[in-house]
């Protein structure tokens, strides 16, 4: 088959992996081609509004496993194709030199067994680094069940490695991905996590110590294919961040790509839920929240009508309003509508002057939600009762119809530097 046709098939199969980050790595160009920019650069956006920064492709979409949610599963009747590691390297270089991409995201179906598959991925990465002297970004998938020594090799060439956890619980995994045990997935994750920590330590002592996945590791799970609550998901994510030092957890709304009776028949993918999970995840990583503050057993699922920070604030109205000229940075971060950038700007600006609401607006602080939770120079902007029902109705975006909501899903998200990833910034 022509390369063009194979590329199309393999891109089609790879696109459901949502991670697009190309940031967080620092690789310098030493007389070859490419570098990894630590801030990440997006090169284009698809018509579903996702950033394109990596050539995201599979080595092969033929797979001996049969995961129910996956287009590539053995029992699915789709055209199969594969690329050789040499072809992958050539394509990557050709695209990179034309500045189409920041680098490569290489994944694959499982051929023969985990180790053989892992070896093929490593070969492509090694060709790029050693033969083509490529210093751009490489994200390699680790194959569940792969030998720790192969995991180690993969991380020597890759900027980031990932194994997808796929589903939040052992039971769901058994049901939908019977060939992949929880242990087979967690194993490479642990190995990678240990090696990442070790390499960081060694490099503190000597700059010459070898790199291991300098951009860390990430994982992805599918939302809505199985009955787990948001609380279970968020707790799992918290564990990944705290115990495995994971860089990112990605959530992917279940899209019935596959059919089959092991799966629920969802009329539309749960995109709003996915978005709320990203926001909750954001709270864990950047806003100093713990999972149990965002959700608890009495309230195991995220409110789809308001974002999780608003939800938290509405449950803690006794803490508000806070005075913008006095509140600590950490407290400002907990005010709905105030993001990291705004909080930093406020803290900086108020050293010089006492801020009014007008000043806040000039600083670019969006007051749409924050106004209900702040005083400035002791004054509030609205004469509103701090009453949950009233506030809630104000906070719910006027566009709550499904259609409008879908379109404006990401409107509040982003920021110059952050726009390069699917964000959940609040």
């Amino acid at each position, binding site marked *: 088959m022509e390369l063009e046709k194979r590329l199309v098939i393999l891109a089609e199969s790879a*696109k459901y992996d949502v991670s697009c980050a190309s940031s967080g790595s620092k690789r*310098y*160009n030493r007389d070859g081609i490419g570098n990894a920019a630590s801030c990440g650069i997006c090169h284009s956006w698809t018509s*579903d509004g996702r950033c*394109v920064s990596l050539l995201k492709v599979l080595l092969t979409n033929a797979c001996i496993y049969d995961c129910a949610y996956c287009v590539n599963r053995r029992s699915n009747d789709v055209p199969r194709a594969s690329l050789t590691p040499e072809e992958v390297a050539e394509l990557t270089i050709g695209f990179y030199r034309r500045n189409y991409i920041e680098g490569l995201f290489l994944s694959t179906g499982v051929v023969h067994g985990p180790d053989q598959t892992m070896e093929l991925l490593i070969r492509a990465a090694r060709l790029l680094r050693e033969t083509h002297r490529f210093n751009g970004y490489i994200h390699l998938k680790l194959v569940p069940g792969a030998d720790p020594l192969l995991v180690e090799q993969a991380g020597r060439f890759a900027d980031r490695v990932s194994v997808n956890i796929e589903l939040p619980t052992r039971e769901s995994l058994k049901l939908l991905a019977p060939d992949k045990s929880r242990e087979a997935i967690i194993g490479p994750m642990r190995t990678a996590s240990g090696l990442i920590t070790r390499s960081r330590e060694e490099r503190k002592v000597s700059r010459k110590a070898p790199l291991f996945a300098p951009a860390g590791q990430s994982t992805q799970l599918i939302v809505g294919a199985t009955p787990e609550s948001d609380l279970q998901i968020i707790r799992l994510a918290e564990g990944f961040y705290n115990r495995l030092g994971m860089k990112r957890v990605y959530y992917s709304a279940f899209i019935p790509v596959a059919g089959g009776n092991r799966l629920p028949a969802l009329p539309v993918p749960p995109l709003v839920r996915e978005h709320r999970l990203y926001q909750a995840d954001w709270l864990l990583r950047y806003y100093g929240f713990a999972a149990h503050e965002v959700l608890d057993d009495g309230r195991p699922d995220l409110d789809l009508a308001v974002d999780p920070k608003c939800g938290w604030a509405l449950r803690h109205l006794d803490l508000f309003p806070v005075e913008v000229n006095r509140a600590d940075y950490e407290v400002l971060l907990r005010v709905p509508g105030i993001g990291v950038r705004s909080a930093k700007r406020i803290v900086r600006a108020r050293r010089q002057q006492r801020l009014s609401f007008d000043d806040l607006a000039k600083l670019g602080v969006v007051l749409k939600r924050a106004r209900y939770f702040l005083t400035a120079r002791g004054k509030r902007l609205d004469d509103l009762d701090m009453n949950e029902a009233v506030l809630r109705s104000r906070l719910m975006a006027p566009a709550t119809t499904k259609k409008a909501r879908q379109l404006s899903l990401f409107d509040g998200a982003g920021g110059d530097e952050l726009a390069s990833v699917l964000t959940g910034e609040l």
Partner: protein
Amino acid sequence: MTCYLYDGTFEGVLTVLALVREAGEEPNSIGTTAPAQAGLFAAIVRVETNEEVAERLLDEIGRRLSPATAAHLYHAFLSETEGVEMHLHRYLRLGWREGRRLDSLLSHESVLPVHQLARRVRHEAHRMKGFVRFRKVREGFYYAALEPDHRVLSLMAPHFADRFFDQHWVIHDVRRNLAIVHAARREGWEEVSLELTGAPVMSEREEWFQSLWRRYFDRLAIAARHNPRLQQSKVPLKYRRHLVEF
């Protein structure tokens, strides 16, 4: 009432700012052409760019105010917005009074416009790093055309000079007839004026790579997530002319 004219370069505007500071008198305007409503009694001063004066001023700004202030000045200048020179003047005038704390006066009317313009320029420069599309031309170098709103080439150059160190390349701002040029395996880059007389002739495999990229790109979107409005806010139509995939 003095209207200062300069040659449109950053060194030029710095020379004017140094002069104005010495004169200690509020200028009426600073620009590259005399304002239409300058009035009968306005004195028009054509300022000869003096690189030494410019450099000394920039140096002093870096030392007495801060290096960030110098960067804000430069970036805001690159916006090429009408009237930006007077904003720079007011910003700097306040700077001599406030010293190091100038850039924390975020909502001050003399600071805000400069910060906003500078941010807009940096944002576009960052965005453009992604939107450059090189085509390999027959002569063996890589050529990319751009039409940015602001004069961002010089801000993009170091990134490309590092990343594509082993490659001959040209990035061309076709609106301003400016280009940055880098020779393979040589440090640095140069800004030159450049006007193409005809369309560049592509190398043999160029079309093949472009069509691969287009086919690949078309496949990426997930139909269930269709959201062209978001796409448009990320890749505004004005930039698409030079993108291979649109």
